[in-house]
């Protein structure tokens, strides 16, 4: 493959990646809802550990602890709760960013505290869809770019 063709492959791949990153994706998502989620915390788990919500929802999380003091901090959202048995905590926020956000215990609670983790999936998970598309484009682009039949 000559130099020109390689430049074209690079440019085309980059272009397609940009398209995959920024093209608006049409959705027929339902109207935003108001949701109340009950989450319990114990050493060393949240229940439920996976929260599925829609972008635009107004979400209220109630945190109830079953054994000792625990927290709930959501990556990327400024949400940080602390609860213990007899002291529930709650926070309300608008899920304005889609994607997967890990949430984790924010009050030291014993050995596995740093790994007491759950996931909040704000659907539709466009970041994952775009990342998948970019991965496939990059794979094909790299194969074509580095392909050198002898």
């Amino acid at each position: 493959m000559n130099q020109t063709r390689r430049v074209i492959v690079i440019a085309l791949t980059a272009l397609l990646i940009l398209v995959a990153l920024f093209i608006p994706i049409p959705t027929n998502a339902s109207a935003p809802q108001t949701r109340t989620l009950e989450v319990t915390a114990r050493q060393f788990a949240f229940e439920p550990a996976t929260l599925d919500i829609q972008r635009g929802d107004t979400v209220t999380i109630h945190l109830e602890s079953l054994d000792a003091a625990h927290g709930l901090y959501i990556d990327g959202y400024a949400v940080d709760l602390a609860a213990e048995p007899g002291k529930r905590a709650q926070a309300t926020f608008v899920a304005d960013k889609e994607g997967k956000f890990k949430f984790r215990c924010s009050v030291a609670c014993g050995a596995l505290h740093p790994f007491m983790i759950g996931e909040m999936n704000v659907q539709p998970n466009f970041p994952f869809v775009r990342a998948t598309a970019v991965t496939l484009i990059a794979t094909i682009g790299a194969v074509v770019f580095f392909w050198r039949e002898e």
Partner: protein
Amino acid sequence: MTMNRLELTQVPIVKKILVSRWLPWSLVALTLPVFVLAILAGLFGTPAGSRNFGIVFVWIVWWALVMLLLVPFAGRLWCAMCPIPAPGEWLQRRALVQPRAGGRLYTLGWKWPKRFNNIWLQNASFLAVALFCVVILTTPLVSALVLAAFALVALAMSLLFERRAFCRYLCPVGGFIGLYSQLAPVEVRVKDHALCATHKNKTCYVGSAAGYGCPWLVFPAALDKNTYCGMCTECFKTCPLDNLALYARPFGADLLTSRGRRLDEAYKAFIMLTCALAYSIVLLGPWSVLKETAYAVGSVEWWVYAASFFAANLAIVPGLFFACAWLARRIARAATSTRELFVAYAYALVPLGLAAWVAFSLSFVLVNSSYAWQVLSDPFGWGWNLFGTADWKWTPYLAGWIPLLQIPILLVGLAAAIALALRAARELRMPQRAALPIVAFCAAFTLAMLWLYV
């Protein structure tokens, strides 16, 4: 590889530093107090890991330093400053900075057994640590005992065996640092091989009045990859011909050479790849039952976990890859054995594996590194406040950005893996399409990582 290199030793100050006998001692003098404090804090400090220097500075600060900075950008530089083998090496030399006449070492000087002249023991020691990592990472006392055990074994081995046998053959960390150091943009190499051929004494290997023979049992003139060079700079001191250089080079240059590919190194690549995925699932995933099982050492469930962990590392992931190699062979109608393809292609996993480890490490390092401020002021959790930072709150850094950092890192690793897979097919005189099953394997792995984090 002589192309595209920049000789850093042409800068006089760089040269002066590398030739100086204060190196690597002065680097170890910096890390040794940290190591001593980490062990003392683990033994005598609070059992609360997030407030114990021994946990925070080893598994967050040191880990970030090694995995995010040193390995990708400086290869084995950590091995030059590692405090673990230092006491043994000093004891062997009965000296800290000065050379001994003739470089004679005080050790029984046993030869390392031939059958272990590979990194299988490092693969095993890494898997052993990895299996118990949930306990080691979270329990200061266990962490300190493991580190102390490393230091004691290193010391004992330096008294029994010649040179740095521990680092070269046993250290669980050295194994993967060596594997991934092939990607680093720096290398220690001889400038002119012809000059070495004229040099009868080979002081770089046997030592001289200026310094010790290569502690890593490497003959510098034979170096064609970073894997077993500990960057201790001893050869800079012992070469009378000024024939050693530190080069800056393109990332991953070592992987362009196809010589010396081995099954033990291939397995190192599988184990690292599998562990990056397994940790992303077990430690950072939302499945608490996995974490609790991994922590409940000795229970029936734990034995199932242990068996699955070994199966994934040693059979399932390599098995899938072997299937891809078999498919590649069928596609190419190649005469080469599947095993040879399997080993050769495995080196394509090196950049993919490092990218996966960087992605995994970012996720817990950024979230937990604020603990470092607290333990700096109160390393033992005894209520000290040396620098006024003991009560700083836990603050995840860039938590919302982590997936956005992980995506490009994983994609760079994937692109490099694809380039290497295609290259391997050419080296094995097969058509390019014989790399496609491997490309699919790498893409699937990348998507699995993305699915876990994004």
